[in-house]
């Protein structure tokens, strides 16, 4: 697992690198944003940890150029600024997550892990998590070698959740994403699909947590995402 850390403060960069390395990740470090778009298209990175306040072009601009070059590498933005508009701007600009300094190492590591898992889960025609594999072109799901029977709705819900591993997803969002113009689904129906999926995914070591009154969080049990 390879990470690119973009941070212009040497002391913080050093300790952040060691924190990430201690979890077995390979970390490269850049003090500036300019070379980043080139680096992420040349080499494979699982995650870019990107500080907003940089000398030269800032984190927002770096992210914009990365995405303009067609890079899908997940980005975790770090900021010393505390304005709420920074958060919105970062996420709208294509960042996958956002953390305000100072942060707890455990939380940084946990969020980095979620982002890399999510990225790894997605290949061109499949989503994988643990020993679950969702073949998008064949529209088939396997737990190990065992095929899993899913209804069309269950498939849609699982696809949506797998694309957002480790992320809290509102019921409303699932509903909006899986219903077409002429469908009239209630949030109760989503609950039914999720409870069926929960039973079917348990053998695969996947857990769908309920966030009371809000939605769901898909994680793999042994990985602790």
């Amino acid at each position, binding site marked *: 697992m390879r990470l690119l850390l973009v941070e212009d*403060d040497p*002391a*913080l960069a050093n*300790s*952040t690198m*060691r*924190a990430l390395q*201690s979890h077995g990740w390979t970390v490269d470090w850049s003090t500036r944003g300019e070379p980043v778009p080139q680096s992420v298209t040349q080499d494979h990175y699982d995650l870019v940890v990107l500080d907003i*306040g940089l000398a030269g072009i800032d984190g927002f601009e770096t992210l914009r150029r990365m995405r303009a070059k067609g890079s899908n590498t997940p980005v975790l933005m770090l900021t*010393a*600024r*505390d*304005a*709420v*508009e920074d*958060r919105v701007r970062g996420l709208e600009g294509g960042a996958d997550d956002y953390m*305000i*300094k*100072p*942060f*707890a*190492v*455990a*939380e940084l590591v*946990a*969020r980095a892990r979620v982002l890399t898992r999510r990225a790894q889960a997605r290949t061109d025609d499949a989503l994988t998590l643990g020993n679950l594999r969702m073949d998008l072109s064949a529209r088939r799901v396997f737990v190990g070698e065992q095929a899993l029977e899913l209804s069309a709705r269950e498939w849609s819900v699982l696809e949506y959740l797998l694309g957002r591993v*480790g*992320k*809290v997803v*509102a019921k409303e969002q699932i509903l909006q994403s899986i219903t077409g113009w002429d469908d009239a689904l209630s949030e109760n129906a989503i609950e039914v699909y999720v409870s069926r999926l929960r039973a079917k995914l348990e053998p695969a070591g996947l857990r769908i*947590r309920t*966030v*009371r*009154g*809000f939605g769901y*969080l898909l994680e793999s049990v042994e990985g602790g995402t």
Partner: protein
Amino acid sequence: MSAASGASPSLRRSLLLWLLWPLLLIAPAAAGLQYVLALKPALRAFDHSLGATVISIGNFVRTSPQGLQFEMSAQTERSIRTNQTDAVFYVVTGPQRELLAGDPPLAEPPISLAAQEWHFYDARVFEQAVRVAALGVVCGDAVCQVRVAQTTGAREALRNDMLAGTALSLLLLTAALVVAALVATSRGLLPMHRLSRQLGSRSLADLRPLAASEVPREAITVVGAVNRLFERVDAGSAAQQAFLADAAHQLRTPLATLQTEAELAVMQPHPPELSATLHRISAAATRAARLGSQLLSLARSDAIARSATPTEAVDLKHLTSLAANEWVPRALAAQIDLGFELQSAAVNGNAFLLQEMLDNLLHNALTYAGAGAQVTVRTNSTRGVTRLEVEDNGPGIAPEDRERVLQRFQRGAQNLGRGSGLGLAIVSDVVKAHGARLLLKEGADGKGLLVRVTFESAARRQNTA
């Protein structure tokens, strides 16, 4: 302005003082002059009519070969002595001051008068105050004297009437001027009162310049100075916000380094005797880092609350949904069941401040509720009243501590040594900045803590006010 009138000089009072004390001097002087000037001719008229009586009595003095004669009929004498108000006395004396007719006491004191010479004087006759007119009358080759006296009743009555009249006109004039002065100062100061009301009713954040057209010319310099002060405060507040943004950046980075290094030290292999120390360093670094962030938030929320930062429509449901992704994993890590009951809840406010408020409420709930607890965030809005609630079923805050924990750097008795004591102070500041209300009470079943922030729409506030 009126509240400070006890100590500071009052414009109204000094205006009144300078209008009224000259009046108090001038009005009596004018009245005195009027009295004297009017009284003199009136008294002269009295003397004149007294003189006419003298002349008519003088006509009765005759020189004949037998000597001087004075013959006046009893009827004439009666008519002379008859007067509406006063007693009239007369005396006629010959050249050697011999009594020819009349009341002898009036002949005293002797006065020598030439022929046709008048003398008017005050005297006492028969123990009464009298005004006397005396005239030298030709009698043969010599000069006789006729004196007529009249008691002063009519004169006193005139004097009293004139005094009363003057006093009354003085009073009326003074009263009219005092009323005019009071009205004039009040009306003249009305624009000042309007100005002070206008300033007094402003929110701290309202630094728009005052319109010079609404104030009198005399106050334009004051308004100009106030407007320049507003500009400086506004610029100062903008500079302060810029400084805080810089300070936030500068301070957060080393704090992040400190916290990370401390956590790394705990995680790395170390001599067991250092373990306790490293944990304490790590905990202290975490606390220092959070305290630093909170101080910056507090300073920034102060600056925002004081500046004319415009409000925006913020849906608390949306704000909470954004926060959910961040806080649910933290709640899971703390083994807390974080749940939501979110309905659309729009308020007018500052998104940054509201976000800070929510973050601090969630941080407190997750920190103090304890593992296994339930924390619920609610947003809803009915009939112009919008509520945000964060409820937990943890240990709660004792009723006697609830007021205190809203102060900066105050912690509940159960939580000494944990937290900065700033969380609820930030919440309280944000609530105040939004004109909302903050309520701390026990949660459902009398357990835990329920923090409720109530926003009322401006329209509703006006209705109930």
